[in-house]
């Protein structure tokens, strides 16, 4: 379990994290969402022990990770700006990590080499951006950490690799209880993978929820009317968003989907159906509920 309490980190007077409090449960896939400069990478570096907090505390399994080799042994951090030893191949990097991480598994490494189309003998500095990211992920997974920190990990990966990676992570989590923290600015990318989500802005968490709970209280409905009802007519429903396009109205409503559809049927539509709700749409309305103008935060 990762616990941050009133965590603060400043750089030259700028507070990258400001009184940040959050809990990342064990075995979860936690998505950290936020714009550039919101503090995602800083949080990951604090968890991995690269940075020391300026205020508050960060605990991993009840211990601060900074200068704590026994805790860091179980953490692997994949940075957004990757670095590999000069002139090294993936095999060279594997040997490097194998000498430091006792949990490194050559079997897992070989298995990953089979699953990803990367030549382990070629020098990494000849790889493309996506290939380098795959290399970093292979090495990270081979170290079999208890906590895997991925900073913009999917950036540059093709869709096939993304799907494969999601499956691998899901398997590892299911098998070993690995906790994964993924930092990204792309909600859609994280939607299918994470079970927890936290939205960062200006160094603080403004929204943190289990994904299921987030979607649970909302539904999106599309209905066709000869004469579309005005918003005032829909007061019986807790409408979060009302869009009209000719005869078609699109509604985002807080409440159970079946109940909402039944209520709309009473108004005599030609057609009414529910459509999938994206995480982004949920977030927009959740944040408006807590007083944030979404359009100023995420774009």
């Amino acid at each position, binding site marked *: 379990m990762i616990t941050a309490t009133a965590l603060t980190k400043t750089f030259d007077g700028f507070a990258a994290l400001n009184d940040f409090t959050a809990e990342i449960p064990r075995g979860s896939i936690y998505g950290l969402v936020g714009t550039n400069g919101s503090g995602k990478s800083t949080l990951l*570096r604090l968890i991995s*022990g690269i940075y020391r907090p300026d205020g508050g505390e960060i605990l991993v*399994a009840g211990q601060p990770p900074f*200068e704590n080799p026994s805790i860091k042994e179980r*953490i692997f951090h994949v940075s957004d700006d990757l670095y590999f030893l000069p002139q090294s191949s993936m095999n060279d990097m594997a040997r490097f990590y194998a000498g*430091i991480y006792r949990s490194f598994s050559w079997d897992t490494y070989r298995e990953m080499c089979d699953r990803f189309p990367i030549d382990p003998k070629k020098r990494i500095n000849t790889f493309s951006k996506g290939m380098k990211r795959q290399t970093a992920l292979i090495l990270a997974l081979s170290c079999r950490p208890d906590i895997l920190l991925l900073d913009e990990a999917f950036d540059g990966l093709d869709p096939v690799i993304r799907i494969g990676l999601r499956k691998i992570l899901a398997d590892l989590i299911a098998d070993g209880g690995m906790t994964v923290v993924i930092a990204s600015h792309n909600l859609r990318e994280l939607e299918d993978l994470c079970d927890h989500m936290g939205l960062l802005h200006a160094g603080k968490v403004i929204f943190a929820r289990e994904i299921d709970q987030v979607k649970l209280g909302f539904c999106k409905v599309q209905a066709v009317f000869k004469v579309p009802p005005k918003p005032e007519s829909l007061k019986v429903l807790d409408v979060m968003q009302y869009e009209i396009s000719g005869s078609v109205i699109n509604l985002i409503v807080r409440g159970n989907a079946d109940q909402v559809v039944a209520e709309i049927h009473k108004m005599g539509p030609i057609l009414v159906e529910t459509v999938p709700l994206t995480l982004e749409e949920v977030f927009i309305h959740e944040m408006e509920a807590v007083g944030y103008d979404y359009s100023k935060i995420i774009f």
Partner: protein
Amino acid sequence: MITPKSFSSKSKGLGFFRSALLNQVSFIIATTILLFIVIVVPYLVSAPEHSHLLYSYSGPDLTGAIRDYYSRYFYGIYLSDAQPGFVGVILALITFAAALFSARYLHSKKMTDLYHALPLRREKLLLVNTGATMVAILGPYLIIYLFTAIGQQAVYGRYGWVTAEYFRYVAMDLFTTMVLVWVVYALTTFVSVNVGTTFDSLAISGVLMFLPTIVYGIGGSVWELTTYGAKFQWEYGLRLSPFLFFFERFNASTYTARGTIYQYPFIAGVTAAWLLIGCLLFGAALLCYRRRKSEVAEQTQPFGIFQMVVKCFAVLFGSALFLALFNERGMAVRLLALVLGGVSVGLIAELILSRGTKALLKNLRWLALSGGVFCLMYLGLSFDLFGYVYRMPDLSNVASVEVTYRGQYWDDVSRADFTSPIDWDSRSITRLEDAQCIEIVRNAHQSQLEYHRQNADSRNYGGSTLRILYRLKNGRTLSRYYPDVDPQSYAILSQLEDKEEFILQNNPLFVMEEYGQLPGTQLMVTAAASSITNDEAVPLKLNEEQLGRLVDALQADTLRRPLEEILSPTHQARGYIRLTYRDLSRLDDYDYASTVKYSYDGFSNDGSFITEYWAPITDNYTQTLALLRELKLEYLLEPKLEEIGEVRISDFYDIYTFSHASMVQRMMPQGRNYYDWRMSKDSSEFKVFSVTDPAEIEGLINRGKSMMFLDDDAASQVLAMQYVDKNGKQMGLQFIRLEDLPDSVRPQVASYLEERLALYSETDNPRVTVTY
């Protein structure tokens, strides 16, 4: 719940060490190649020469001779005394680069992310990197060193020349090299840990490597320039830089006629101090690294303490540089130069290290402070606020004094040749404990200060310097150095010429007697006699007892000689007794022969020759003359008038002003090389006058002098004369006063002298009259 597992940190460290060592492969290769070039290749290049020497050498004791030869020419495993310096500096440069390379991860955000995320404590990270770097540098060094030593033994060891001295040298070389490499690494790492970029690390640690030496040099130079009598020992500054101490370490030695004596305890002491400094720096690096924020990577730190030190140093350096450029100007100009220099160089340092002017206003106060401190120091020294210039000890407090005055013996062998370092300063020192002698030296010192008080700018009289060192009864010393000797000071010092303590230390008659008592010497003395007109002496066939009596007589007459007769002789010059000194224990010592001056008249320059001394004999040398008379050898002093065809006369004022002005001068044999040329022809620059009348020649012989005290006034009235035989062969030399010239040439010579002296204008070489 995550259970923290403790794994073997040793195996983690080893794994990381392997990786760190692999990272240093390029340095391993570079070190190996460079050391091979500077250590092994010279052997390969000089092998044919050494082989030739081995086969061509002959002597009574071949093995012993070669042992002696090679023990003198090998410096441990090296073939020259400069090699250890170059080897050390190459290693230091490689270490410097390797340390920067090893610490570069601290200066890159993405590298920092990788390394600081590893499950390793920072101390271990640093220690493992350090170990890998040291192995990468010192591993090849030790291997090549051993390889060379074994090869050296294989080729030359059969002569059994390896001695305890060899092992001492090798041990000291290895010890100092490894320590200095360590210091370079520790300093670079300490700086790297505290700055954010590799450029800052390079610039700041590069400056700090030499900063103490440069500050010492600047301080010492300013002190010497502004403070009359100050002389700072620049070589001490070389010991303040790990780079420069590579060259200086074996210079901390004494060179004597019997070989080099390395000051091993001293070298070991300085090296131990460096070892301690290196350990302290590395310890500080560890401490700072623990506290270092990872986010410092790639950041410049305009207000960091290291940057400020370097910037303040830049102000000091700039001030000193401009001060040196304008040192000859007035105080106002010098102060302006000091300020402008500090400002300009300080500004450049600020712009470079802060990457612009953003921090300039905030840093200005520190830069101004360092400039201000230097300015105040300069003013304090310039106006002698510390009372250094005119400080002199009371006579009652002085136990002994050393002075760089040897008078007429300036070019003769001295006691220092055999007991002290052979360098110009030591050879020119006389050490005195006699109260009267001390008083003379102090009076000369007083005169020198008076001269300074009356002269705004010092003038250099022919390159003579004066150094005085008082050893006080309380154990302290007071030392002064004057680059321009006041002629009056030399006149006062010339009063030492008849003092027994002075003569015993400087006159070869006594110095060589002392030499003969040194252990291991086999002194052989031969005597020859010459008239004042000849340049070749006739060997005297004397048995040991007669030779001993002759030396005793010469010594007695020399000690009895009155001061007036030395300075302004009235007695007739009678000739010379030339004593030649050889040490048969050095018969095969070619090197020794080159370190001690060899004779002017072409003695075979084998190793046994030490020196020769032409003792000038006058009518006053009664004991010597009596002995020669007894041995029926007095006739050898008589000039053969019938053989002399001509006496050539010319001035020598240019020689006088060039060197050793205002001292007692002897004409033979010191003047031979120059005057043989000078007297052989006229030129547009100077004239040679000729006297051929036999009566006039005889008169010149009677009135010529072999030695006298010459100051400007006297020198302008004294000429050099050389005797020439009827075949045109140039022979002996003497001084002759203008007034003692025959009427046939005196007017022309006087007129010529006036023209010549007019060439030396008042501004360059003013005529000075001294009293003594």
